[in-house]
């Protein structure tokens, strides 16, 4: 039984990622014939979000994930349904705060790594002792 959960309009004023990108010819010459058949906008919801029901957008504060291309002020798309794996960028609950880290699962234990030499790793005896809030799937980096 297939179940479709359509993309949700998060804000009635403007769909979060409703971007108009029409196939306009850039080079000189004939205009693109596709222009006449243009039938919809690229919907970033459809491309960036797999499971809208369990996906949230969060905003990063701090520079500890610079090495992963995640900067202060960037937004992350976080899917709570995903199983955290070794190497996942996760949102973990640390001291009552949502914190973004790289998850490392090794034979000797679980490590929450920063991607910036200024910050120390956090060692956790087992994954069960950690609350993983969600797994980041995309970074909306401000360029």
């Amino acid at each position, binding site marked *: 039984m297939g*179940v479709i959960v359509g993309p*949700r309009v*998060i804000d009635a004023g403007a769909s979060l990622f409703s971007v108009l990108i029409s196939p306009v010819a850039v080079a000189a010459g004939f205009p693109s014939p596709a222009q006449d058949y243009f039938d919809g906008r690229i919907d970033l919801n459809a491309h960036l979000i797999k499971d809208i029901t369990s996906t949230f957008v969060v905003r990063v504060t701090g520079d500890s994930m610079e090495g992963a291309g995640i900067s202060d002020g960037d937004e992350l798309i976080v899917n709570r349904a995903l199983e955290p794996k070794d190497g996942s960028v996760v949102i973990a609950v640390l001291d009552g705060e949502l914190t973004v880290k790289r998850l490392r699962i090794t034979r000797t234990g679980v490590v929450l790594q920063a991607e910036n030499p200024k910050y120390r790793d956090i060692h956790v005896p087992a994954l069960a002792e950690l609350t993983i809030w969600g797994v980041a799937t995309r970074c909306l980096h401000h360029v």
Partner: protein
Amino acid sequence: MPKTVPMRRMPQIAHVDVNCFYASAERAFDPSLEGRPLVVLSNNDGCAVTRSPEAKALGIATGEPWFKLAPRAKEWGLVAKSSNYELYGDISSRVMELLARYSAWLEVYSIDEAFLGVKGSPDQLLALGHRMKAAVRRHVGVPVCVGVAPTKTLAKLCNKWAKNNPAFNGVCLWESVPADVRAALLVRLPVDEIWGIAGRLTKRLNVLGIFTVQDLVNADPVMIRDKFSVVLMRTVLELRGTPCIPMEEERIGRDQLIFSRSFATPVTTAAGLREVFSIYGQQASARLSKHGLQAKVLTAFAATSPFRQHEQAYPSVCVPLPMPTADPVLLTRAAHALLPNIREGLKYAKAGLLLTDLRPTGNQPPLEPFENRHEERGIGPLLEEVSRRFGRSSIGLGHGGIRSGLDWTMKRDMRSPRYTTHWDELPLVKAA
């Protein structure tokens, strides 16, 4: 993906509801609130409407006014939050979307509870209950309990047991509770613990010697019908295991109005649903006006037929309204936000509106351009034209107003960010 279980047994009803919904929704985005006593306050920061278990343990009652609690908050470590209906509405939508994956027959009963038709052996039903509980917790971040029974009334009762008795681990199946345990529980349970029984009705039942749920089970249904009502007779029959409370389609509660209908013939296009929601917007508006209420948050949903073997869908959308309103035009326009989520060609059998964050009309005179009759006076089209030409935030009504989420009518000093509906208020995650 969850699977429905093939079965020859009688269908059962699962009642799923979120534990301390408003408090749990707050905690989902602010883990520092975990384990702390927390109350969510009614509009204008008046009274405690939701209490976390820790707050209950402090002896705080539902409806206790905040001015009485505030002086002791520090000593207790008590946290208070103003109602954040945009957040609650969106979390509610997500919970319902998720539950719809487990049963094609889903009835949204209120912002935080739903009935689902389920089938299976007792073991399968228990496993299903635990799967739903785990999924909502993990995917959306809020805890639920599940009660499963042959009738809605019993399913609600089981849910209550699941909540109050840790031995059930959050899921209670009527069939698998041993008969002697059931009997012992029913004898102890006051009759007003039953869905739909409260206040004066309790007193009238007590006069007849009906004090416990077991007393009511034993009562003669015909006598109950004659002395009280058909509604109460149905409750008695439901307690005895005969399902007879039909799908409720319209209900107004203390803080929410739900309006939903099944269609005689399925609607298969977004255009068709546009018409449906236009009608619902007007009807919901009439209901609100009748009760002298306005709403600030609207949830629109549609569902495919549970009885057909084809693709299922349960699109749902939560829309913060630009201001408290009962205006049919605004309600309709907000409901139309669901239309982009409608898949053409699917057979939609039902649609509905859930209006929350209700407050009495006329607390505050609306600003001139926000008056309800703007449509008649042609202001609506004008505003749209202005928005179209000068950008969405150039004028307050319509989408610009919705987007900025102006909240000028309410005192909500302690409201948490609207984490999931406002780009400027996203949850912050620390990279440190």
